C-alpha cells in the first residue's frame, strides 16, 4: 500500500470462513459406482423435505408412490423429473450409420416442442401429462411433488405442482455495518487472443489502490475480498494430442499460467482472494471441480491470502453467506430448458434447492455414493455465477423473508467488466476497465 504523506489508508478486514468441504473429493475413488446413487441420495433428501411440506399444501390428499398409483384416484406423488428430449445429443450418435453432413441446427439449445416430462421414484416412472406443466421450463434431475391422477393409460394427469422453494436462510446481521466491497471477476482468459493484458493490469492496480486519486483509493481500501470465478487462463489444449511435446510447445503450454500467477501475486499481496476453477482451466472436468493445484501458482501460493477453491464455491464473509459457480450449471440449464434471462435460471435452482439439477445427466459430475453435494440446504445471501454474457443482477425475496442477491458475473476478457458488491446493503455495481486498443 502506498503511503500517503497526509493520510494512511488502512485496508478494511472481514471475517472469512470457507464452506467448501462438501465439494471436496478426497477419499472418494472410482471403483465401478454408477450414477444411480446420487439420484437416490437426492430423492431421499428432497422427499423428506417435500413430505413435510405436503400437509400444508394439500392436507386432504393421500401421498402415493408411483407403484401405488390407482387409476382415477387423486393423489400426490414425489419423484425425480426426467425430461425426454428428442434433440438431446447422445454419444451413440457417433456410431450412427451415416455421418450427417449438416451439423445440428441449434447447437446451443436442445428444447423441442415434443419434449415430455416423466416422474420417477425408485419404484417406477410415469409420464406426466396435462397442460399445467410446460416441459421447456424444467430439466432432468429436479425433485418435486405432483398432484394429479392416473389416467389409466400409464399417464399421470397433473393438476398441481410443488417445488421445494427457497431454502431457509440465516438472517442477515443488519446492525452497525459499514461499506465493505467484494469484487467478482470471471473469464480472465489470460493467454487467449481476446484478452487484453492492459485491462487486467488496470483491475489489479485498482484493487491494490495504485490507481486514481485519494477518493478512489479510499474506495479501493474498502475492498475486502476478490473472487475469481473460473476460466482464468486459456491453455492451447490442442497441443495435447498424446504425442510428446516439443520444447517450444512446452513453454507455450505453461506461459499463460505463469502470467496469471504474476498478476495474482500482486493482488494476493494486498487482499484475500479466492480462485475457482472453470471449464477452461487446468482442472478436472466433472463437478465439483477441485481446487487448482498450487503447483501452478508458485508465486501467489506463498501468500496465505491466496485460496484455491472448489467450483461450486461456498463461503461466509462477515456472516454473509456466498454461493457461486463458474457458470456451468446455468449454461447447461440454458441448453436444456428455456427462461427469460440467466437470473431466472439461477432463481429456479434456488427454488429447486439444487445447484446443478442436470448433473449428472447432461452436466459431468463425480458419481457420489452417499450424498449429493449440490443440494442447497441453507439459502445464501449472495448467489453468483461466472462467465456469463453480460452483467445482470436482481434481489429476490423468498416466502419466508429470505433475501438473495443474484449476480451474473460477465466474462472479463470480453469487455473488462468486474462486479462489486457492497456487503452493507447487498447493492451491486460494475467496474469497467474497457480500453481501446489502437490496432
Amino acid at each position, binding site marked *: 500500500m502506498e503511503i500517503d504523506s497526509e493520510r494512511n489508508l488502512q485496508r478494511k478486514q472481514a471475517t472469512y470462513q470457507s464452506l467448501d468441504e462438501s465439494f471436496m473429493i478426497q477419499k472418494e475413488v472410482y*471403483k465401478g459406482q454408477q450414477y444411480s446413487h446420487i439420484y437416490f441420495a437426492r430423492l431421499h433428501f428432497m422427499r423428506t423435505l417435500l413430505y413435510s411440506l405436503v400437509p400444508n399444501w394439500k392436507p386432504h390428499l393421500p401421498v402415493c408412490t408411483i407403484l401405488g398409483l390407482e387409476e382415477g384416484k387423486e393423489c400426490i406423488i414425489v419423484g425425480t423429473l426426467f425430461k425426454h428430449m428428442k434433440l438431446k445429443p447422445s454419444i451413440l450418435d457417433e456410431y450412427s450409420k451415416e455421418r450427417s453432413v449438416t451439423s445440428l441446427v441449434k447447437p446451443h439449445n436442445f428444447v423441442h416442442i415434443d419434449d415430455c416430462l416423466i416422474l420417477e421414484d425408485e419404484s417406477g416412472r410415469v409420464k406426466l401429462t396435462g397442460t399445467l406443466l410446460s416441459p421447456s421450463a424444467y430439466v432432468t434431475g429436479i425433485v418435486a411433488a405432483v398432484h394429479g391422477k392416473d389416467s389409466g393409460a*400409464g399417464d399421470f394427469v397433473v393438476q398441481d405442482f410443488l417445488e421445494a422453494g427457497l431454502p431457509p436462510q440465516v438472517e442477515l446481521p443488519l446492525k452497525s455495518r459499514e461499506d465493505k466491497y467484494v469484487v467478482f471477476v470471471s473469464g480472465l482468459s489470460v493467454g487467449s487472443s481476446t484478452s487484453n493484458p492492459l485491462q487486467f493490469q488496470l483491475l489489479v492496480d485498482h484493487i491494490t489502490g495504485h490507481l486514481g486519486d485519494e477518493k478512489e483509493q479510499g474506495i479501493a481500501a474498502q475492498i475486502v475480498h476478490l473472487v475469481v470465478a473460473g476460466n482464468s487462463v486459456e491453455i492451447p489444449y490442442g497441443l495435447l494430442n498424446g504425442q510428446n511435446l516439443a520444447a517450444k510447445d512446452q513453454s507455450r503450454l505453461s506461459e499463460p499460467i505463469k502470467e496469471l500467477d504474476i498478476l495474482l501475486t500482486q493482488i494476493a499481496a494486498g487482499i484475500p482472494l479466492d480462485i475457482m476453477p472453470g471449464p477452461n482451466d487446468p482442472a478436472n472436468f466433472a463437478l465439483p471441480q477441485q481446487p487448482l493445484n498450487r*503447483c501452478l501458482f508458485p508465486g501467489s501460493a506463498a501468500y496465505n491470502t491466496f485460496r484455491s477453491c472448489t467450483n461450486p464455491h461456498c463461503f461466509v464473509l462477515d456472516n454473509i453467506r456466498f454461493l457461486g459457480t463458474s457458470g456451468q450449471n446455468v449454461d447447461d440449464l440454458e441448453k436444456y430448458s428455456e427462461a427469460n434471462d440467466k437470473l431466472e435460471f439461477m432463481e429456479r435452482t434456488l427454488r429447486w434447492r439444487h445447484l446443478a439439477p442436470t448433473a449428472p445427466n447432461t452436466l459431468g459430475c463425480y458419481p457420489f455414493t452417499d450424498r449429493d453435494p449440490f443440494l442447497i440446504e441453507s439459502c445464501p445471501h449472495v448467489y453468483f455465477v461466472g462467465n456469463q454474457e453480460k452483467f445482470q443482477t436482481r434481489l429476490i425475496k423468498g416466502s419466508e423473508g429470505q433475501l438473495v442477491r443474484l449476480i451474473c458475473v460477465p466474462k472479463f476478457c470480453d469487455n473488462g467488466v468486474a462486479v462489486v458488491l457492497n456487503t452493507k446493503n447487498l447493492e451491486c455495481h460494475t467496474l469497467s476497465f474497457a480500453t481501446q486498443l489502437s490496432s
Partner: protein
Amino acid sequence: MNSRKRAQATAPLPPSKHQASTPAVEEEFVDEDFFLDETLIQEDEESLILRDFEERQALASCLSKWARPPLSPSYVSLSQSVFFQQLEIDYVIGESHKELLPTSSGPAAIIRIFGVTKEGHSVCCKVHGFEPYFYISCPLGMGLDDISRFHQILEGRMREVNRNSKVPKHVRRIEMVHRRNIMYYQQQTSHPFLKIVVALPTMVTSCRGILDRGIQIDGFGMKSFMTYESNVLFALRFMIDCNIVGGNWIEVPAGKYKKTAKNLSYCQLEVDCLFSDLISHAPEGEFSKMAPFRILSFDIECAGRKGHFPEPTHDPVIQVANLVTLQGEDQPFVRNVMTLKSCSPIVGVDVMPFNTEREVLLAWRDLIREVDPDIIIGYNICKFDLPYLIERAQTLGIAEFPILGRIRNSRVRVKDTTFSSRQYGTRESKEVTVEGRVQFDLLQAMQRDYKLSSYSLNSVSAHFLSEQKEDVHHSIISDLQNGNAETRRRLAVYCLKDAYLPQRLLDKLMYIYNYVEMARVTGVPISFLLSRGQSIKVLSQLLRKAKQKGLVLPNVKATGSEQGTYEGATVLEAKAGFYEKPIATLDFASLYPSIMMAYNLCYCTLVTPEDVRKLNLSPECVNKTPSGETFVKSNLQKGILPEILEELISARKRAKSDLKEAKDPLEKAVLDGRQLALKISANSVYGFTGATVGQLPCLEISSSVTSYGRQMIEHTKKLVEDKFTTIGGYEYNAEVIYGDTDSVMVQFGVPTVEAAMDLGREAAEYISRTFIKPIKLEFEKVYYPYLLISKKRYAGLYWTNPNKFDKMDTKGIETVRRDNCLLVKNLVTECLHKILIDRDIPGAVQYVKNSISDLLMNRMDLSLLVITKGLTKTGEDYEVKAAHVELAERMRKRDPATAPNVGDRVPYVIIKSAKGAKAYERSEDPIYVLDNNIPIDPQYYLENQISKPLLRIFEPILKNASKELLQGSHTRSISISTPSNSGIMKFAKKRLSCIGCKALINNTEQTLCSHCKGREAELYCKSVSQVSELESLFGRLWTQCQECQGSLHQDVLCTSRDCPIFYRRKKAQKDMAEAKCQLDRWNF
C-alpha cells in the same frame, strides 16, 4: 442330473426303452397322461378347457374387457351382407355341405377365409364347392366317348394309389376346354385341353404322377402326359379363380350365406357359402383401407440354468409380455405381463402374477382366445418363443395349452422346416401353424429385407429406431427371477420393452402396409410373403394373366442348374482413379422391365428355332435378340409378360401421383406401400424367367434381356464418346469411365457440376431417342468428386442440384461387413469424408497415420477392435479351428456360467502371444483383456484388418500408398501394456517413476525427478487434461446407459455386447480410476 429326472417324471413321454429303469409310479403317471391325451381331448375338449374355470374366473373377467366389440343385431340376425378384409386363406377336408351342395357327398376341400370387418369383428368364412383341378393337353382325335373311357381308367388308377381314402369318386369329372400353351409362339389361337377335376387337393399330385408315368388308353396306347398348372397350390388356385388378391375385401351378400350350426371356430362370425357367391372387391377407394386388425406383439422370458441356453425340457417360462395394438393406432390398447411368482405393479401395465407355470401358460392361452389377435408378431417368435411355449407345455403335460388357433379342437403343432431360395439362401426354421392367425416374425422379415451386420434385436433397433436396447444376460435373468417382487418387476419391464420393440419396428418400417400392398399387387396370401420365395409372387401374376388370355402354364419339372447359365450383365471396365471433375451418371430407368416391354419378350412370343424355319416369318414381324433368340413383335402376338409389366408400371405411376395428392397419412402409407410393391414386382419378373430351379424358367428370355442390356450400355458408351468431342463442337472430349448393369458414368470434362448436369441431360435425351420405347436413358445425378476403385466399388458425393450435394454415396466399400472390427468402418468412413467432402487428402493421410499410431501405442478404444462372430455349433462340429469357437471353449473352462453358448454371438479381440501362435489361439474375451491389461496385437489389426480396405481407397490417390501409410515414422513408436495376470509380474517390484521423463524416483512423496522440476505447470496441465477428458467421457457414457435403461434410480445392468459403448464404458470406468490415482500424486 437331478433336474433332468424330475423333468422326465412330469413329461408325457411315451414309455420307451427307459421303461425298465424308471420306477412304476412314473409309468402309471405316463399312462394316465396318455389316457387324457387319447380320449378326453377328442371327446370333450371344451370341458377340459373349462377345467379350472372357477379358479380362473377372476382372470376371465380381467381378460374379457379386451374382447372384440359385440356383434350388432343385423349381424346376429344374418340380415346384413358381411364385408371383411381377409388376411389368411387355407383349406380343410370336411364333409361337403348338405344344404349348399345337395348333390355331392363325401369329403371335400373347404376353403376357410379368415378376416376382420370394418367394425373389428373377426370372421371365418367357409367356402364350399370349389374343386381342385389341372389340365392336360387333349390327345389328337380324342372324342367325348374316349374321354369318359379315359375317365374310368384314370379313376381306377387313382383308386389304386389312394387306397385309404373314403372318397366315392376320385376324379370328379373331365371336361374338354380350349386353351393354349403359354410356351412358344403359336399361330393357332387354341387347342383342345382336358380339365381334370379331382375330389381333393392332394389328389392333384397323385394324379399328375400317374399321368407323368404314362397311362394305357384304349385306342391310343400307352401315353404319358405333360400336365398344366398342376403345381398351383389349392388356396392360390381358389384365389386366382375368384379374383381374390391377398389382403383385399370380400363381400358375402346377405341371404347367400348360412350360419354354421355348430361353430368350429372362435370367430365372432362364422358363415358357410358357395364360392360362386363371393364378391371380391378390388383394393380401390373405400376398399383400399385397412380393417382394424388386432396385432399381438409378445415376448417370453425363461429362467435358464447357469451355462446353458434355455431348453424347454428343463427351463421354466417365467414371464410373458403382451401388447395388443389395433391397426392404425399408435398406442397399444393392451399392455400386459404375466409373471411366475409375485411381481410389483408397473404403471400403465396390467401385471398378472401366478403361482405356477401352468397357470402362466394357461392364462396366456386364454389371453389369445379372448383378445383374438389377427396377427401375431415378435422377434424370433417362429424359431424360439412359440415352439418354446408349446414344447414347454408338452413337458409339463398341459395338454390343453396349445389351442391357440381360431379353430376349436385343433392344437398347434411344431414341425421343423427348411426354407430355401436362391435369393435368401437356406434357413432352418420351425413352423408353428396357428390356424387363422398370421404370424409375422420381425427377425425373418429383417433377414429378408435388409442386409445388416447383425440381426440382434438390439442392433436392429439401434439401426432403425436409433436407440439401444438394454440387454440382460440370461444368466442374470434367473437371479432376477429368484429375487423378490421388485427384481421380478425389473425383469417384467425389460420383457415388456422387448415385446414393444417389434411393434415399433413394424410401425416404423410400415410393414403392415407394405406387406398387405405387396399381397394385393401380387395376389398371394400374406403368409406366403414371409414363408415363400420370390417366384410364387410372379407365378401368381402370371397365372392370373394367363387365365384371362386362355393360356395355360406347363408344369416343367425342375431340371436343376444343369440347364446351364447364361452370360449375366457385364459391366464396362472401370478406369480406376480419383476424379476431381464432375462425373455425370446416365441411368436406364427400370432397364430390364423396359427391355422386355420394348422387345416383346415373353414365353408366348418366343419362336423355337424349328418354327423360325417352318413358319417363315417376315423379318418385320420378329426381333432377333443379340443372344440369338427370335421373338415375334407385338403386332403378331402381344406377350403377357410385357403386359403384366405395363400394368405394373402404369399402376405405379398412378399410385405415385395419388400419393402426391393424398392428405390422410394412413392413405399415404397404403399408397407408398403399393408403389414400392409394384416396383419390386416389376423388377422380379426378369429373375423369375432366369430361375433355373423355379416354376417356369425360360433362359431364352433372361439371356436375351441381359444381352440387350449389354448392347445398350455399349451403344451408349459409343454414342457419348462419338458425339461429345471437341470435333463435335464441345469444349472437351467426353470419356466413359465406368458402366454398371444399368448405368453409365461419363466424364464430360467440364469443371462445374452445373455444366455436367446440362450435358448429362442433353446426352440422355439424345441417346434415348435412339432406343425403342419404353427404354429410356435418364440423367439423374452427378458424382463430384468421384473415387472409382474397381468395378462395383466406388464412392463419391452425390449431386442432384448444382448448389449443394445430397449425400455421400458409397458402394462395395467396407462399411458393414460382419467380420470386420468397427475400426475399419470408422477409418474408411472418416477417410472418405475427409477426401470427398473436406477435399483434404493430406488430412486423410494424417488421420490414418494418427490412428495407426494410436493403435500401436495402445491408445485405441478397445470396442473398436472387437470382432464378433456367431457361435452356431460346438467346437467339435467345426472342421477348421476358428477363433471364436476356441475362445468359447476357453471361456467355458474359466467360468461355465457366463461362457457363450450355441446361438450366442462371441465378441473377441486378437491379443499378443508367443511367436508363431495361430490366430485362433490368440482370440480373447474383451472384458478379460480389459480386466487383466492384456496387450492386444496391433500388428494383426494392421495387417489383417485395416491395411486392405485402406490401400484400396488410397491406391488411386497416392503413389506408394502402402509405404506412405503403413510404414512411416508413425509406426516406430509402440507401447505394450503389461498384463497383470502373468506369472513374471509377481516377482516384479513396482516403483514410481517421474511423470515427466519416466525416470525412476525413490522418494514416493515426489512426483517429478529433480531434472523435471520447474516443468510442473506444464506436466500438471497434461495430467489434468487427461483426467478431464476421461471424466467427460465417463459421464456421457454412463448417463446414456441410464437413458436406455429408462431409470435413474437403479443401477445399469445391461450387458449388451452388441452395443458400441459397452466396452467403452467399462474401459472409461477403469481408466478413470487409474487417471485419478495418477492425479492424486500431485497433491503432496
